[in-house]
């Protein structure tokens, strides 16, 4: 097997078939340059894992679920307002009920806003 640098990365990651892996191992025994490259790749891999880990910020998942629930509640509120507005246009006698419900929705919306 001739020198194939990228095959060394595949070998390091266990991505080679058993046959190709065996061929790389044979090659490494007789090629100092490839053996050196493999050591460099191993060192880089180890250094990345040791020094460059990402620490997740707190609250990431909770905020996602909060946004989803707020979106659902907003959709419900908008739907109710549209239905009552249309109803009010064609049936003036329900305007009293409309004003009562709007008051309830305003109260619920400010509760959701303070809860996020």
């Amino acid at each position, binding site marked *: 097997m001739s020198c194939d640098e*990228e095959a060394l*990365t595949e070998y390091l*990651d266990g991505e080679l078939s058993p046959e190709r892996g065996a061929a790389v191992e044979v090659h490494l025994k007789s090629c100092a340059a490839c053996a050196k490259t493999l050591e460099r790749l191993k060192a880089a891999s180890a250094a*990345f894992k040791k020094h*460059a*880990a990402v*620490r997740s910020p707190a609250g*990431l998942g909770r905020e996602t*679920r909060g946004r*989803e629930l707020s979106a659902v509640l907003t959709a419900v509120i908008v739907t109710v307002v549209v239905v009552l507005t249309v109803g009010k246009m064609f049936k003036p006698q329900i305007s009293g009920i409309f004003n009562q419900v709007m008051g309830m929705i305003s109260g619920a919306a400010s509760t959701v806003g303070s809860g996020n």
Partner: protein
Amino acid sequence: MSKLSADEFVRRTADGVYALALRLTGNAADAWDLAQDALLRAVKSLDSFRGDSDPRTWVYRITVNAWKNRAASAAERMRRASTPLDAGEAGAVRLPAGDPPADVPLERGEAAEAVRRAVAALEPEDRACLQLREFDGLSYEEIASALDVPVGTVKSRLHRARLALAKALEEHR
């Protein structure tokens, strides 16, 4: 889909999504926005995913697509801002950053700094390949699926990224 299953999904994938988002965007603020965006999209379409593949690969694909859409939008705004009539938009442009990741350092020292600088200098997709391989343990096939690139591209990116880190380590000694 029950609320509990969506919660569980987020609990299991949020850290990995954020880490990938940080590798793609290069800074914590953009990573947070991107991660939230991706997780929300995933939760909304969770019913369309039901166990036929690793959920991480699925949500990472969503994350990468969301990142590409943002980059395309930013590039378009920049293109429009480069014309005299659109000069006023220039101040509102926010490109995917090449700044060093603002993750909290777990270890001090020159080697650590050399590695972090080298990582920051990599292309976003190269950083993403390293993250998914070294910390998530995904196979080349899985990484290729997440990034929507051929397996050969994953191999090349990993190889190039590791050589760059190796050079940085050797130069700092």
